[in-house]
């Protein structure tokens, strides 16, 4: 315990304490808790005002986590699989908010699959985190739709159906920010979350997040052992805020610099493979190849900033609809009389 007076603060004078939420009620060692920590770190690093954030979720272990971060923020723990539609409504109502959504593989890959796809199709501005453990935790151990063929669970037996790849689905749906990470890879995760928060449209991060209670056997592709053993970072990612200087560290050609709309930059340093995250076809190829080779690739898989957000598509005013006054919402008497005269 240290004296709180010396606690460091960020640019808006808040401490990490100000980004905390309630105490987690998830199992000790759950990957989701690590992700919660990185959300807190990312928001602190970005100096996000908690009053400008809405936390959204569906139903499941993952969807409980918004209670564990940003306690000051508004949030909505919605229905199973329905976070996308509720978030769509909320972000249309108040486009000035930053939405951070947390879902799981059951919430996204099964019951909410349709809403997930349509949210990306609409390009609803939000960070959409999938805490992917391949198993239904709250109902005690059924296979989810992201479970690998041959995944064996004590309760549910052996899975024989092919997995849904969240990232491949996101790319197919024309999502402009698609990333994959591992709950055990704190640094990469934090940078990805910062980049996702700064991205204008839907940003999907599929995070393998082991379930220590139901699906953490070494042979499971959603286990800690698998993640540590098979992870291949496709690039080193560094998120650079708009007021920070972008320093080129390496020789030309080894870094990809992606400048986001409102100023910040994502710097991607090449590792072992040649990869261009702006190339949608290359992303699909990467996912297919890595699946066949049983490699767990992580990093920013695809980025494309060309699509308008839903609010832009709908030509909404810049101010939040939720704060329109009666004077702004009521038609004029003249306009009303003109409409009545049509009949």
């Amino acid at each position: 315990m240290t004296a709180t007076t010396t606690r460091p603060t960020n640019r808006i004078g808040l401490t990490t304490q100000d980004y905390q939420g309630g105490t987690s009620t998830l199992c000790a060692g759950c990957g989701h808790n690590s992700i919660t920590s990185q959300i807190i770190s990312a928001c602190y690093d970005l100096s996000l005002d908690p009053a400008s954030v809405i936390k959204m979720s569906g139903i499941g272990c993952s969807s409980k986590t918004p209670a564990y971060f940003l306690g000051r923020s508004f949030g909505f723990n919605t229905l199973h699989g329905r976070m996308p539609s509720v978030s769509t409504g909320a972000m249309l109502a108040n486009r000035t908010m930053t939405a951070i959504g947390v879902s799981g593989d059951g919430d996204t890959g099964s019951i909410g699959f349709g809403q997930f796809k349509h949210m990306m199709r609409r390009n609803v501005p939000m960070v959409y985190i999938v805490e992917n453990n391949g198993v239904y935790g709250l109902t005690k151990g059924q296979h989810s739709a992201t479970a690998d063929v041959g995944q064996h669970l004590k309760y549910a037996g052996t899975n024989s159906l092919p997995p849904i790849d969240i990232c491949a689905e996101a790319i197919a749906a024309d999502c402009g920010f698609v990333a994959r990470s591992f709950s055990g890879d704190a640094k990469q995760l934090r940078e990805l979350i910062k980049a996702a928060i700064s991205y204008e449209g839907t940003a999907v991060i599929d995070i393998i997040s082991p379930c220590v209670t139901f699906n953490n056997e070494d042979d499971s592709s959603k286990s800690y052992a698998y993640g540590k053993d098979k992870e291949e970072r496709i690039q080193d990612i560094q998120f650079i805020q708009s007021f920070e200087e972008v320093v080129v560290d390496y020789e030309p050609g080894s870094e990809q610099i992606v400048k986001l709309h409102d100023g910040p930059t994502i710097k991607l340093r090449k590792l072992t493979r040649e990869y261009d995250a702006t190339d949608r076809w290359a992303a699909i190829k990467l996912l297919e190849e890595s699946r066949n080779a049983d490699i767990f690739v992580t990093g920013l898989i695809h980025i494309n900033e060309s699509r308008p957000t839903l609010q832009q598509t709908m030509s909404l005013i810049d101010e939040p609809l939720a704060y329109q006054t009666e004077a702004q919402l009521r038609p004029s008497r003249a306009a009303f009389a003109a409409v009545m005269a049509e009949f």
Partner: protein
Amino acid sequence: MTSHDTVVSAPIIDPSIPIINDFSLVVATENGSGSQTANNTLIRAIFKMGVPVSGKNLFPSNISGLPTWYTIRVSHQGYAARREYSEILVAYNPRTSDEDLSKLPAGGVCIHPADMKFTTPRSDVVYYPVPVKDFLKEIAPPQHLRDYIINMSYVGVVTQLFNISRDEIESALMHHFNGKRKAVDLNLRMVDLAIAHTVASLPKQDPFRVEPLDKTAGKILIDGNTAAGIGAVVGGVGIVAWYPITPSTSLVDAITEYAPKLRPAVDDKVNYAIIQAEDELAAAGMIVGAGWAGVRAMTATSGPGLSLMNEFGGLAHFAEVPIVIWDIMRMGPSTGLPTRVSQGDILSAYYLGHGDSQHICLLPGDMSECFSFAGTAFDLAERFQTPVLVLSDLDLGMNNWMTAPFEYPETPFDRGKILHTASFEQFLADHDNKWGRYRDVDGDGITYRTIPGNQHPRAGWLGRGTGHNEQAVYSERSEDWQRNMERLSRKLETARTHVPAPVVDARAGATVGIIGYGSTSDAIAEARDQLRAQGIETSSMRLRSLPLNDEVRAFVAAFDVVYVVELNQDSQMLQLLCAHAPKHAGNLAPVNLCDGLPLTATFITNRILAHRASAQK
């Protein structure tokens, strides 16, 4: 004909006695043939002559080729309900012509294409054959307009035979085609050909006439969905999320049409969003998100869609999120008869959700309420922080009704107990620095809410459908749960006295009561006149909302018999009335029908007379 005792039935028409402004005309065509233009032209012309008129479209769930009937009722008394029979038939659909002809009362009129053959012609009706093919040859309209122009031939014959103003026909066409002279002239050529032919070759043999009156001055003709759409825009709607379903679609179409006129874009940007969702679940989810974030949000749907919104209904009730759901009721169960009317969602709407939930429901009974309840629904949703369902139906929503023009609302929005940054600060100062999202400070069951964007560090809360305490924090404590449920019940009791009160017409000497709601109101008013003519005086109560109040209980108690008129099989409102007034449940008698058609006065009158006759045995 229905199987019950018929006391009021179709009279035999005597052609020597003029029948002025009191008859019905049914136009039988195939759907997709464009007859709507012709029928609207006739209605508008009669309306502009000052004669009360209403139109009902009985159409199939199909785009093209199936039979459709459009009934126009002309009534100097202003009756707008459907009648059991029409005296005049425009038989333009060869596939139904025999059956249509068989339904005419003796002395009725049949207007038909000259080449139409009836298998079983009747000798007791008047025929007016129309040489449609000759007209077509003369006009030679473009092929794609052929069907529309054909229909104008019956407009011409009807105009001439029944003394409808030809000038008003032209004005109605001008209105329909937004003043496009070329389109008007093409249609008018057929009308005029048919008029000339009628003058020359179809001597008048029937007693029906339209005579100008002064009973529609200052009135308009409109359908309930358009009224509701305009009402929603005027009522401050911010977000409309929806999924297409008959018969609610035209409500959202009206918002799409009138929002840009009523709330024009500034710098090409608008302060509303109309979003077509991927299904009704998503539509409901979007308005829950929008309502939670502080916008007046609504959807429009019908029975099957409402079923899909069930889970969100439960969430919004328990998380206390204001949303408005318009249910334009149609015949169920399942897909049922999608283009036929019903009041079959009363119970499913009232109890939408899971666990215990009763919702505020509004029951518009005329065009002016379709308009005004759109705003009322938002006010109540925000005042009570809860879903409000507006239960309209296909008859109200899609048919044309006469009404006074709507009035610009003079009362301000009721945004309810909402705290923004400054008012939140003040609230804390006034309440010992205590605030909980679900803390009942005023004792009325309604708590104070904050919305995203509130800058106060204590204003945020996590909405949830799970058990929660007054601080909106997850809780499985029995006391927290019980206290919350009791507060929600208290909130319902508060709502009971705030929702639109029933409209009562109490008559001296009334021996029976009649309770009805929604689209049956006109049929009930007409039936009461019929009963009065038979020596039975009635008092009526038109319900305008749920939950039911004390006044309703007193009305049920006040008569030996109270008839409950509704368009569903299970007497759904009667069930709610029994639960509301259990001591007097024995007074209630159902007058219900579930045949897909708008209710007629004759049905109500006959059912009541039969019930009284059997009670006396």
